[in-house]
């Protein structure tokens, strides 16, 4: 049962509070934390020893960006932190108490949408968060009275807010996905909404997650990159491709020029996502082409239609180029281990690999001629390098031939020495052992 509500407290509680205050005064002297604690703050005096959800400690506030800029409890909750007890939480002092979820966006926006106020602290901060929020699914549902959806404090936290650029912030790119998943992966929470809850699980094994979290590449997408942050809304079937094409421009261009564009639109299939998935985006492999078990082409195409043939042909061409490059690599490595110089050929191999990478992009045109441009460029290079490897090994064999010659001469000399020894010892009569 929480104590110390804004309207009236009983006499017995006053005694308890008195005792607590003594304890706290002592604790304060010992702790002496931040400059925040220098001004008398009766709010924290009590609330730091209450149980959650009323618990707010000085340790939390030390990290909070609002507190660091000089704001206090009263800035959002009203009241007077310099006064005691009832005066601190009185209506006269403007005390608002616990803020209802539905009131949170308006409260935050009372400062954050006031450009002249916010720009006193940071002139480059945006001030459209509330208007964006109102367009989002979260904002629209909140307006209809659904208090389960996310409000500002759900993502940004409340008493220990860090700026998004701080890697410990719940809205830093590295942490965004886990923040969203707090609700979106919670089956019980999401029950009324009939949308899937596997997005985070899928994203966690995706290449985007790997790039962002494992390789530290902050340009890799997280939830908000594709869905927006304040104006969060999933892109519709017709517009998914636009979102992907912001980064994957080539693939989108090729797709737009391909027969798939019209076909997908006609079947209301989203571009990109149909083959690559939206959240569980895996590293594409050559096995996704062709007609094998992992092929995505066979989801639509069947034996006998044109697309089936194209799928089979492109996979065959790509895998054979891959194999040709690998063959050349192995041969060049062998030659290098034998001590031959193959650095020129090895350099050319990087260009062959470039061609293979380009070919794997050009498959989005699903046009064999277009794909073959890149494949042929790569094949030519791989062939040249294989020939260079053979030449290097031929040089190595020439060395061995030279060795053979000198070994023969050595053996002849040894034979000559031996015979000469026999001859002179025959003459002098001394017997070798």
């Amino acid at each position, binding site marked *: 049962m929480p104590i110390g509500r804004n309207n009236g407290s009983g006499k017995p509680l006053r005694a308890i509070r008195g005792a607590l205050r003594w304890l706290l005064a002592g604790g304060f002297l010992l702790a002496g934390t931040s400059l925040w604690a220098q001004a008398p703050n009766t709010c924290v005096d009590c609330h730091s020893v209450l149980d959650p959800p009323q618990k707010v400690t000085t340790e939390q506030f030390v990290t909070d960006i609002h507190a660091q800029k000089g704001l206090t409890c009263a800035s959002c909750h009203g009241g007077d932190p310099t006064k005691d007890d009832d005066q601190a939480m009185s209506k006269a002092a403007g005390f608002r108490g616990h803020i209802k979820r539905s009131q949170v966006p308006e409260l935050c926006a009372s400062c954050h949408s006031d450009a002249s106020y916010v720009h006193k602290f940071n002139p480059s901060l945006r001030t459209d968060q509330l208007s964006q929020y109102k367009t989002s699914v979260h904002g629209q549902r909140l307006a209809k009275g659904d208090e389960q959806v996310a409000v500002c404090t759900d993502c940004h936290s409340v008493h220990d807010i860090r700026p998004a650029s701080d890697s410990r912030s719940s809205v830093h790119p590295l942490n965004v996905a886990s923040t969203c998943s707090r609700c979106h992966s919670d089956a019980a929470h999401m029950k009324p909404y009939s949308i899937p809850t596997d997005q985070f699980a899928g994203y966690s094994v995706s290449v985007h997650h790997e790039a962002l979290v494992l*390789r*530290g*590449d902050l*340009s890799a997408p997280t939830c908000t990159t594709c869905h927006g942050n304040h104006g969060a809304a999933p892109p519709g079937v017709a517009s998914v491709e636009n979102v992907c094409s912001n*980064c*994957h*421009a*080539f693939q989108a261009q090729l797709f737009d020029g391909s027969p798939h564009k019209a076909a997908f639109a006609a079947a209301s299939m989203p571009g990109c996502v149909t083959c690559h998935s939206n959240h569980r985006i895996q590293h594409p492999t050559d096995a996704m082409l062709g007609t094998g078990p992992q092929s995505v082409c066979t989801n639509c195409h069947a034996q006998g239609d044109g697309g089936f043939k194209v799928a089979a042909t492109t996979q065959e061409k790509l895998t054979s180029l891959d194999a040709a490059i690998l063959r050349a690599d192995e041969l060049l490595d062998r030659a290098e281990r034998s001590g031959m110089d193959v*650095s*020129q050929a*090895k*350099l050319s191999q*990087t*260009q062959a*690999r*470039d061609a293979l*990478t*380009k070919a794997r*992009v050009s498959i989005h045109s699903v046009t064999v001629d277009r794909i073959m441009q890149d494949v042929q460029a790569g094949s030519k290079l791989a062939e040249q390098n294989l020939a260079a490897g053979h030449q290097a090994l031929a040089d190595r064999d020439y060395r061995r031939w*030279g060795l053979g*010659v*000198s070994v023969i*001469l*050595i053996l*002849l*000399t*040894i*034979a*000559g*020495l*031996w*015979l*000469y*020894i*026999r*001859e002179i*010892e*025959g*003459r002098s*009569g001394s*017997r*070798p*052992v």
Partner: protein
Amino acid sequence: MSPEGSEGGNQSLPRRAFVRTLLGSGFLGSLLSFFYPVARFLLPPPTSDFSSDEVVAGQVGELKNNTGKIFRFGSKPGLLIRGADGAYRALSATCTHLDCTVQYRGDLQRVWCACHNGMYDLNGRNVSGPPPRPLQQYEVHVRGNEIVVTRAQRS
């Protein structure tokens, strides 16, 4: 030490001559097979300096303004750029995204990677697209008629 037969006394002259010929020619031949490689070794090869930290990337006048050229730096590609102002710059040509070879785009005055549309400025800084890191910069000096590219010394 081979056990000797009962061949005491002189051997026949043709036999002795054969042995001497065999020994002499074998000995001379083997000496030649040793000294031939040594003689070739002593003469420096065509590329007399090998420093992996320095390479001649091109000749003065080879590149027009606002064009680029790929050159070999050890076993990795480098990009030599002659800017619109005529100044030379050199960068590593291996894209920091997935190792494709970049190229110079005169129309954009940027370094561009054809694989995934990555862009770098003339200082190698990654300005757009997937590349996570800038391209390594090299120093360029003009020595006589040659454009020499060097990279920073490693310890």
